[in-house]
């Protein structure tokens, strides 16, 4: 038994930790493109902002899609509620609220991440330091994850936190794919094009999968394989299927613990079944964009149902 408010705090704490890291990952992929492409990189930065869901708020504030502007906006701007700094701050406020539910190690790692990032992101980032800053963000969130997995009891507290992590992660991966879905479509892409190679690598890089992809598939990037990897692969930790495997598992633990199933269980199972029986060919036939848009909607609904079923409010 857990306070509804505590479950809510755990869920959002994890979502925001995940988001803080995803922002760094997106900027990392964008930076890579900007460095390796000779052409103007503003299009790439625009898709980074689209993936982050921040394109509109960005355009309210800036004219130019430059490394400095985008990284400032996505990493350190506290007026942007999804920036790494805002996310880590929100995560920490939630952690502070639920701190009796966390091990000392977990709380300290979150508190320390907040302290060190606050210091690091206090001033505008010098472009030369950007890779160091991105590494530091990923390292801080990795430390949080490490102490969380290493010390937390596998109970409902763990379950609610994990639900937050995987709902956020599934949303993030789906958005990254959706923003770039057209470069993966067979009709537009043509094999061997250097341009598309960059685009594909960028997709993989934004989910830290550019290396592991080669362990699973041929060394060559193929659009269907990339989509397959990010949507259907059971072992790729940021794929939609992987996220739903764990969402299903943690929801089942909760149902077993409490002896009660809710609407969210049915929704999660429906999505899981859809991912299980789908092949990448079916998905492309159905329309990749349509598939992703539907998934993002379902995933959001699952989040809302979890909140309602477990009395977050």
């Amino acid at each position: 038994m857990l306070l509804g408010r505590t479950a809510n705090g755990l869920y959002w704490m994890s979502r925001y930790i995940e988001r803080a890291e995803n922002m760094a990952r997106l900027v990392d992929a964008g930076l890579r493109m900007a460095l390796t492409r000779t052409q103007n990189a503003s299009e790439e930065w625009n898709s980074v902002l689209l993936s982050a869901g921040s394109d509109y708020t960005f355009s309210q504030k800036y004219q130019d899609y430059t490394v400095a502007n985008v990284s400032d906006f996505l990493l350190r701007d506290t007026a942007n509620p999804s920036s790494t700094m805002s996310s880590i701050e929100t995560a920490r406020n939630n952690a502070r609220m639920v701190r009796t539910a966390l091990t000392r190690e977990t709380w300290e790692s979150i508190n320390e991440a907040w302290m060190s990032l606050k210091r690091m992101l206090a001033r505008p980032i010098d472009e030369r330091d950007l890779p160091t800053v991105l590494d530091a963000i990923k390292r801080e969130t990795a430390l949080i994850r490490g102490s969380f997995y290493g010390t937390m009891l596998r109970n409902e507290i763990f379950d609610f936190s994990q639900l937050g992590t995987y709902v956020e992660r599934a949303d993030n991966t789906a958005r990254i794919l959706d923003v770039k879905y057209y470069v993966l479509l067979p009709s537009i892409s043509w094999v061997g094009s250097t341009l598309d190679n960059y685009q594909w690598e960028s997709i993989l890089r934004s989910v830290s999968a550019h290396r592991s992809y080669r362990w699973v598939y041929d060394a060559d990037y193929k659009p269907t394989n990339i989509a397959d990897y990010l949507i259907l692969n059971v072992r790729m930790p940021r794929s939609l299927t992987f996220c739903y495997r764990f969402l299903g598992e943690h929801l089942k633990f909760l149902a077993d613990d409490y002896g009660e199933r809710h609407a969210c269980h049915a929704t999660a199972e429906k999505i899981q079944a859809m991912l299980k029986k789908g092949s990448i060919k079916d998905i492309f036939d159905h329309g990749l964009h349509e598939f992703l848009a539907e998934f993002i909607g379902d995933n959001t609904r699952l989040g809302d149902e979890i909140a309602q079923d477990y009395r977050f409010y």
Partner: protein
Amino acid sequence: MVFRGSTRLAAFDEMLPEVSGLRRPYQAYDRWLKEQDPARLTQKMQDAERVFRKTGITFAVYGEQEASERLIPFDIVPRIISGQEWRRLTQGIEQRVQALNAFLDDIYHRQEILRAGRVPRELVAKNDAFLPEMIGVRPPAGVYTHIIGVDIVRISENEFYVLEDNARTPSGVSYMLENRETMMQLFPELFQQIKVRPVENYPQLLRQSLAAVRPQSAKGTPTIAVLTPGSYNSAYFEHAFLADQMGVQLVEGQDLRVVDGHVTMRTTEGYKQIDVLYRRVDDAFLDPLTFRPDSALGVPGIMDVYRAGNITIANAPGTGIADDKAIYSYMPEIVEFYTGRKAILGNIPTWRCSEPDSLKYVLEHISELVIKEVHGSGGYGMLVGPAATKKECQDFAKKLQAKPGNYIAQPTLALSTCPILTEKGLSPRHVDLRPYVLVSDRIQIVPGGLTRVALKEGSLVVNSSQGGGTKDTWVLDD
């Protein structure tokens, strides 16, 4: 604590008094200290700060945006009390706490002390801290104030005085526990050499104590919860810490609702009954239906549940009447009235400005006295005569004459000092002591407490909101 500004008074030093040399309780510590490398001690001081910052032991200071989370400075030299001194203190505290509870029961029932004329009736009747809603209500197990922090100052080898009784929601106990924890981390060898009585079982004692005063309607193991105003409250760290250590839920008003005559909390499995609520929310915010209607921190209807005997609220609503500064000056009479004996622990002599003779004296001696607002707390809204300018004294005298009933006055006392570690070595600073008392079917006092220390040389202000720090407090097992 109470005094603002600095004064240069000859004070009794608890480690090294000028007259008699190193005091006994400090002998073993002093031996150890002399063997230490000063550089190592400086390093330890920094370690301590890092430990506190990392674990998030901070407090919020109202009105400071940027520094909204600050550390209370911690000094690594312990304040040491001998077993014998402690025994004497505890006798005095027990007697006082008994009297406080008896006084509350009396005030909300027969009011015998008022009938006997020992405490003026209007002092109670016109007091904001007196809750008419509590008249005739008898809390479960008959306990009103379950958790008390008694602020004690020392003037000399044998003179201890009570400065204030905190009978509402005394804070700071988490610092007592974390200070000890930090000291044991920094200097494990010290605790092997010197036998210090443990304080770390406080949360367990608190839990047992709260369970013992559960309402009669509670069946089986009672469900206990800590009620906090929320994570933006200055003492939130402590609320979370205590809930955690006791293994109970930390709830906010928004989590609670009255269902079928019981207070319940909203959980992931529906609404669950609470039997004992350790509330860290002020009376006025407890129940918007009974007290402040704009309060979102409390629980609508909780007072009805309370009156029906279906929940224990610790401390009980209305206990503030017992630690009110106007009542304080009557504590010697109160202790004698209910225990039949003279108070073991005395009060600081106090002039009640509501009395014409006292007012006259206070106005004549304003530059020698400390004058406090009756309802103020935390060292705000007061005058320290010896540290004030002539103009400040004159201005204050006007306020005093306008509303004499609002003020009491006390002599400026030379609080005892205890050394702190500075860059130049040991240096004496003024201290006070807040031991924590738990009341259920018995009275328990954890051997130790919170020692607050005025870090500025010569300063008598130990409040954390005004530059005070803390020390670990040792009661020797001798």
